[in-house]
């Protein structure tokens, strides 16, 4: 068991190092190698931050839906914990998407918000939907029910993400000039820098998800140890929690020991 935990922590460290390297390389390429955009100038560099953030956040939402399917199929709460952490980090990335999107819009179009940019508008709608995930979890006290309902939400919202993009795009007959609608025109050096940035951002998301799950597990273990040392029957914390309990290595060990 200790071996498995040690292995896990090493993988997390390696993952973190890989993230730093790939992100460093990506932004190095973006600023030093990729040419400055002829049309937009320096502000276009935010493209290497904004678009990878958005893609990773959206993929994260869909991954959360798939994890939620796994939770409903198996009934194992660890899938709910993974789905929860995925949504949590994608929402945080989503704040970054909206902020960088507003800055980019101000820099290149002169306005802080642009309703004619369908991707940004779609993203806002998706973000508003996922923001309700927290009050939803908070409003259900029973742990199992909370996990199940959160999974149903994650599946529904995951199916909603692509559909919403299609709908907002359909509402937009006049397509605003977009960096990607003519991706063929994106020079090779820009594309390379972009792809490395995207890979770095994806690694960052995975690292943070792993980190969050590990830290949840550790703090769960710590609480259990404290309770065991403090006489074994500390009062359960009265605060309602919206975060799922990750199955801990400690309780697994104890269960195995009992057997």
């Amino acid at each position, binding site marked *: 068991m200790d071996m498995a935990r040690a292995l896990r922590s090493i993988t997390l460290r390696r993952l973190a190092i890989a993230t730093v390297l790939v992100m460093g390389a990506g932004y190095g390429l973006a600023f030093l190698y990729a040419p400055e955009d002829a049309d937009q100038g320096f502000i276009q560099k935010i493209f290497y931050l904004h678009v990878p953030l958005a893609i990773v956040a959206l993929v994260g939402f869909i991954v959360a839906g798939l994890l939620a399917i796994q939770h*409903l199929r198996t009934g194992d709460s660890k899938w709910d914990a993974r789905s929860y952490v995925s949504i949590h980090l994608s929402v945080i990335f989503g704040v970054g998407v909206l902020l960088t999107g507003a800055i980019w819009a101000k820099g290149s179009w002169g306005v802080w918000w642009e309703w004619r940019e369908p991707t940004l508008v779609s993203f806002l*709608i*998706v973000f*508003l*939907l996922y923001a*309700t995930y927290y*009050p*939803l979890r*908070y*409003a*259900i*006290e029973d742990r199992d*029910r909370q996990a*199940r*309902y959160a*999974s*149903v*939400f994650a*599946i*529904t*919202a995951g*199916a*909603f993400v692509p*559909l*919403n993009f*299609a*709908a*907002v795009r*359909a*509402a937009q*007959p006049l397509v605003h000039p977009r960096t990607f609608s003519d991706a063929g025109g994106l020079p090779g050096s820009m594309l390379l820098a972009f792809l490395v940035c995207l890979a770095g951002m994806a690694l960052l998301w995975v690292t943070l998800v792993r980190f969050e799950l590990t830290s949840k597990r550790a703090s769960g273990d710590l609480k259990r140890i404290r309770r065991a040392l403090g006489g074994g029957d500390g009062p359960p914390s009265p605060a309602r929690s919206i975060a799922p309990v990750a199955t801990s290595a400690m309780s697994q060990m104890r269960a195995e020991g009992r057997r």
Partner: protein
Amino acid sequence: MSPFGALLRKDLRVELRTLRSLPAMALFAVSAFVIFRFGLDRTTLDGGLAAGVLVPTLLFAALLAINRLFVAEREEGGFDLIRLAPIDRTVLFAAKASALVIYLVILELIAVPIFALFFLDSVSGLLPFALVLLLTNIGLAATGTVISTIATMSSARDLLAPLILLPLLIPLVIAAAGAGEHLLASDGPDYGRFGTWLALLGLYDLIFLLVGYATFDFLLED
């Protein structure tokens, strides 16, 4: 009688005897029209503005019914009886969604003619628009039934359903208002992108009926 028929008849009979949802929905819609008359300071509406008043009003009125959809089940222990009954639980999803579609059709039969009477110069676009509304109702019923179940079982109740549903229903508003903009134009209906909107509505209905069908069982587990 099939379980589906029994549950649907039960719901319709309860609504007919108590009249808890429908009169409130209709009254809400008509009051909202009056509010828009003053809010926009317009006595006639057409095109995008007509669709922009009518579609969101119907949607908000639908939220009233969605909030009340499972209240009797919660208060009178209907959920427990469904769990005990030897039937497929997704039947409850089908029955509730069908009841909701019926409520919405009745609401529209009342509210849309009043809207036309109040604001519209040309009513020739209303017939094709009825098809748009019907597909919108199905989508509303599919997501509304799932989210209503979640909200009913939570402690936030009436707060949670509108909160989750408003963003979730935006594609329906986009399609219905987009179709309405051309169908309710002052110079007669224009069918330019009618097919696109119907396809979008159909896709939404299909996806969320499937999601509801697949997940509803997990909402009823105890």
